[in-house]
């Protein structure tokens, strides 16, 4: 029975048997991400795409173009502004949204603080964790039932265990022990009112994949991703940028080094790496042989404890 079936398939196939090389890994990742975005468009009533102006969300926008053009995106772009963003990145965010002609919603952590919904101990403290409050408020304001995000499993341990369609209860909480089983490419996008999903189409991409894709698609990225001269101080293994929010501590020596950012999050907790890579190709070459993880090199907030990300996600962080 099985044998018979196979024979008939092979009879049909010879004219195309040699025609198909295995898909290149970037094509496979791209197709998977397009499929996921279209599932969100089909299954969710009020989706949104989180766009920060960072490289992962830049890739997400290109994938959305691939999934939905020549039509419009079936979701608005949403940015949760910590108030501590690099100005180059914010300018890029607005430029890209205008270029695409898509709606951009910005909500700010500053407002959440002013309304007493989020608390900071000092004005210059990292607001990364506070984003969760503003994000959950924004989800409630617009009744979003799904937020597409550019998080990747290779970034961090907690992310490595998260589903592509990640269920959040009405408090926005991620429960790692109680995730929905996710098999094949059959995603369960059903939620009750008040609950929502975080959906990560580029879960299976690595930092190198992201840069390779940026190169392949000739995507524009904010200038601070490329090597530039910047005032920094050395703090432990990290280079801390000298800004109004992150002044040098007593005794620290300010140096002017050629650096680039591997991630562009909150200024108070994002560090550049020493680099002379001023083209995408040079960044790819560096990334391919790099010896420190993206977050290890650049994020002060993930260094605090081995479980930092896990804790933040349990509080509603994306």
């Amino acid at each position, binding site marked *: 029975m099985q044998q018979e079936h196979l024979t008939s398939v092979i009879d049909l196939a010879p004219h195309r048997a040699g025609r198909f090389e295995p898909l290149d890994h970037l094509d496979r990742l791209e*197709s998977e991400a397009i499929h996921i975005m279209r599932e969100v468009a089909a299954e969710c009533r009020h989706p949104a795409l989180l766009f920060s102006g960072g490289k992962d969300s830049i890739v997400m926008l290109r994938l959305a173009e691939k999934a939905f053009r020549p039509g419009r995106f079936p979701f608005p772009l949403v940015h949760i502004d910590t108030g501590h963003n690099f100005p180059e990145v914010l300018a890029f965010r607005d430029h890209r949204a205008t270029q695409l002609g898509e709606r951009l919603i910005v909500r700010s952590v500053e407002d959440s603080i002013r309304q007493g919904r989020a608390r900071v101990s000092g004005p210059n403290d990292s607001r990364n964790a506070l984003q969760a409050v503003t994000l959950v408020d924004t989800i409630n304001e617009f009744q979003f039932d799904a937020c597409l995000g550019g998080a990747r499993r290779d970034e961090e341990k907690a992310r490595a265990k998260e589903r592509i369609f990640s269920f959040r209860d009405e408090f926005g909480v991620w429960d790692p022990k109680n995730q929905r089983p996710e098999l094949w490419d059959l995603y369960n996008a059903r939620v009750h009112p008040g609950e929502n999903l975080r959906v990560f189409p580029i879960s299976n991409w690595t930092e190198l994949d992201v840069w390779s894709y940026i190169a392949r698609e000739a995507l524009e990225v904010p200038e601070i991703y490329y090597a530039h001269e910047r005032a920094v101080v050395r703090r432990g293994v990290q280079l801390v940028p000298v800004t109004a929010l992150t002044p040098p501590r007593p005794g620290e020596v300010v140096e002017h080094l050629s650096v680039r950012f591997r991630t562009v999050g909150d200024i108070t907790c994002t560090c550049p790496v020493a680099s002379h890579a001023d083209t995408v190709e040079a960044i790819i070459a560096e990334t391919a042989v790099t010896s420190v993880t993206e977050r290890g090199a650049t994020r002060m907030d993930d260094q605090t404890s081995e479980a930092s990300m896990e804790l933040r996600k349990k509080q509603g962080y994306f």
Partner: protein
Amino acid sequence: MDQAERTMHTELLRFITCGSVDDGKSTVIGRLLYDSKAIFEDQLAAITATSQRRGLSETDLALLTDGLQAEREQGITIDVAYRYFSTPVRRFIIADTPGHEQYTRNMVTGASTADLAIILMDVRKGVLPQTRRHTHLVRLLGIPRVVVAVNKMDLVQYQASAFEKVRDEFIAFAGSLGFEEIIPVPMSALHGDMVVERGSGLPWYTGPTLLQVLERAPVDEALVHAPFRFPVQLVQRPGDGEHEARRGYQGRIASGSIAVGESVTVLPAGIVTTIAGIHTFDGPLQDARAGQSVTLTLSDQVDISRGDMIASASLPPRSEKSFEALLCWFSTTPLDVNRRFLVRQGTRTVQGKIGTVAYKLDVNTSEHVPAPAQVAMNDIVKATFKVQHPVAVDSYGSNRPNGCFILIDEVSNDTVAAGMLL
């Protein structure tokens, strides 16, 4: 620059690792990542510090796969973790699943998308009940290739006879299960023999290292040569931006390939038409294959919506309202056959009911236990299903992507089971 170019055109292999901490599974994965230079300095520093804190004399590579705080506290692995590494010829995605019995659902989850499975064994222990369980599950999930990683060879003085004994024992048990290929590899993950490097302990072994097997295993070959299946995700109306003023049907090709001008059947309507165009953001294509996300246009006006299927006209799937399947139950609440569920198959979601439960599969022995009194979490049963509207399906054995489904509880919205059509 050389490195960058080499990473541009590589294939992707997804595999699952099955075994328990005792078999050295975490050490094998740690060794693969470490020796293929996928480990970063800060990760290494973190696990070196942890190793020292725990009083170990050497860095325990197994700590690399430690995940969440909840797991570290309990010293267990609670879920599927995905890990990534690459060599100049391939990209790899590892689904790392725990070996405990109560986590069958995680193994089934990890196996559902894998092209290959590594089954870990301790050479001193041979085929254990859990080895049988993992092997049956891997077979059930339709993974064509297994690597039998016979680990801890250093503990038997690297004797060829010890390896051969375990290898033969495994083949005696699994040889008739229907795998396309069973590849036994002796190794010592602890000392790095035959994982990435050949090492010095196993000079008598002339076969490939674990990494060589992973680099050479075929990727999704069978899928491309299966009949064409295209579950429609979204319909793009001409007003949405038009392709030759026709409606565009968006989706990812589940299996087979398609070319402009070929005839297709639209199911469940059963209408035959031809492919007018294959469109992507990057321009039109003459043909496309399994795994590609595309927009199709058809020569005739056909009423098609999400959940319908465009399929090969000469080798169409079955379109039916009742079917038999193997079901893996995931929910902590046992199956209630009086309840209705949502059956999600392809892009279609229909209401469904379970008819009869014929037998329960004992995953340790592959034996059938007739008419089980209860279907509880991690049970695998054969059952009949009735669905409200016809679904266009294949048997899981002949077409993985079009022979699988999940069951969703209508009230809780939880995914309560996974099914494979017979």
